[in-house]
């Protein structure tokens, strides 16, 4: 059986240099967006999803675990942050911290339940767990069920940056995204990342070398969940609400789709994938449910025709890891 991310290319020092160049280009491009007349709300949203997809990719691309419930981190952090900001009146930085911490805790708890199963079972369990959470949030008083938490105050970050100014908010979100991205990049290229890769490649062998693989997968899962939660907390400032949409299974599906389109197990793939999918939703919004159909078609096409995804195909052509 061939694994999902079978043709990952080896990471050489040269590849790492290439990656830094691409990263710099990406950061620069994103930094000038507000001056181009592109609707910043759209890009901010895309950045949140890009971070989310990167976090998800850390787990599937490097840990070999396909979570079909990653929306639960997005939604949980969103709700907790929103509640902290609106009801407790916390400052933005604390709001983000609390939300992200909630996601980390959720990762710990759900990881404990799910991490011992692999393959499709892991996917189904994470999906079911996220649905469990969905129903809890549907009924819990603090989430306001269907109505969601609305009209969240954006406040001043660190007491200085006025987040209700789109420009300020944009750069805050961008910095958040880049920081998250770099952390993921570092994780992939860390001693821990090496072990993770070897587990994905051949878990029985890693066990036989003395690695307690469950613990590594658990850490990867928690990291991934925490970063996904961070994305969720950031998103609260962009959308100014927290709602059930973000914990619904279709959101989990979208996360998978973004990563698949960009390229599972590629570094930049999830970012590209997130932008492609968000842009598509944006421009096809007028076509109603056809968006869903198109997403389905993309899913099918990716699985049947280009399993490597956009960036993966490109990397394969260039024989570089991206």
């Amino acid at each position: 059986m061939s694994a999902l991310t079978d043709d990952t290319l080896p990471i050489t020092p040269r590849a790492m240099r290439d990656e830094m160049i691409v990263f710099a280009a990406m950061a620069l491009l994103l930094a000038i967006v507000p001056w181009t007349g592109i609707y910043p709300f759209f890009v901010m949203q895309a950045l949140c999803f890009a971070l989310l997809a990167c976090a998800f990719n850390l787990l599937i691309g490097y840990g070999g675990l396909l979570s079909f419930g990653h929306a639960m981190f997005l939604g949980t952090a969103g709700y907790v942050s929103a509640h902290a900001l609106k009801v407790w009146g916390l400052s933005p930085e604390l709001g983000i911290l609390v939300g992200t911490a909630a996601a980390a805790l959720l990762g710990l708890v759900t990881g404990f339940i799910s991490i011992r199963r692999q393959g499709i079972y892991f996917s189904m369990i994470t999906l079911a767990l996220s649905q469990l959470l969905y129903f809890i949030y549907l009924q819990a008083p603090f989430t306001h069920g269907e109505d969601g938490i609305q009209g969240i105050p954006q406040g001043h970050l660190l007491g200085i940056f006025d987040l209700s100014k789109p420009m300020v908010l944009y750069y805050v979100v961008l910095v958040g995204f880049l920081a998250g991205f770099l952390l993921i990049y570092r994780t992939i290229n860390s001693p821990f990342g090496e072990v993770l890769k070897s587990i994905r490649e051949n878990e029985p062998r890693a066990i036989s070398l003395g690695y307690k693989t469950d613990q590594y997968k658990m850490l990867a899962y928690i990291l991934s969940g925490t970063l996904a939660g961070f994305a969720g907390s950031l998103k609260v400032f962009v959308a100014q609400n927290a709602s059930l949409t973000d914990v619904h299974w279709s959101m989990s599906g979208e996360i998978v789709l973004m990563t698949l389109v960009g390229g599972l197990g590629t570094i930049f793939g999830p970012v590209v994938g997130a932008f492609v999918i968000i842009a598509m939703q944006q421009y096809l919004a007028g076509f109603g449910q056809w968006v869903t159909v198109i997403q389905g078609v993309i899913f099918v096409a990716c699985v049947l025709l280009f399993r490597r995804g956009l960036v993966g195909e490109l990397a394969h052509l260039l024989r570089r890891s991206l």
Partner: protein
Amino acid sequence: MAYGGIYLADEFILETSGLTKEFAGFFAVRDVALKVRRGSIHALIGPNGAGKTTCFNLLTKFLKPSAGQIRYKGHDITAMPPADVARLGLVRSFQISAVFPHLTALENVRVALQRQHGSSFDFWRSKSVLDRFNPRAHELLNDVGLSEFANTPAVEMPYGRKRALEIATTLALDPEMMLLDEPMAGMGHEDIDKIAALIKRISAKYTILMVEHNLSVVANLSDIITVLTRGQVLAEGNYADLSKDERVKEAYLGAGHG
């Protein structure tokens, strides 16, 4: 080796008693008492389905025994999780080749070295901290004759080389005892000779328990042979003795051998 009284208890690095594995009423391994002498090359032979691989799986904890005990270096490891057993220096190699296909040979070995020296959970550090393992990794690759493959992804290496790489990876753990499951399977002549020489060489430092169907390898390498049939120990001894044993002839070698 065991000369003085102090070492006598330690003469056998691995001992099992009453080791049994039952699969829903079927006994794959039954009441096996195995004693592996420190520093020896011990071979486990027997017909297909005799329970050799199951035995290996039990020793390395990939399977849970239904009954019986396993003692390794004086520890009772019967209930120990697999990773802990490996940490004690009891390491296996696999019947099917077990490498990390998309890591280079060097990285393959490094993953094993890294485990020994901690820091494997450090996700915030650059992996360049792993470079300190490179000299030792190169040394190990050299030992098994893979120097020129250091930067080749394992997937691109020829079959016999993968096997050698796997042994190098296993050696990186600095084990005391190695379990080799059919190390010669799927190899051509030259490879068999090379690996046999390698095994002979490393056996100076390590205890080796191996399963092998290739009788000439068994005959040449092993100090002692245990014959399993139907999950049970049929006989034990050196090759010369066993090849004369009627029961062994009947169960394994066949009437015509000897």
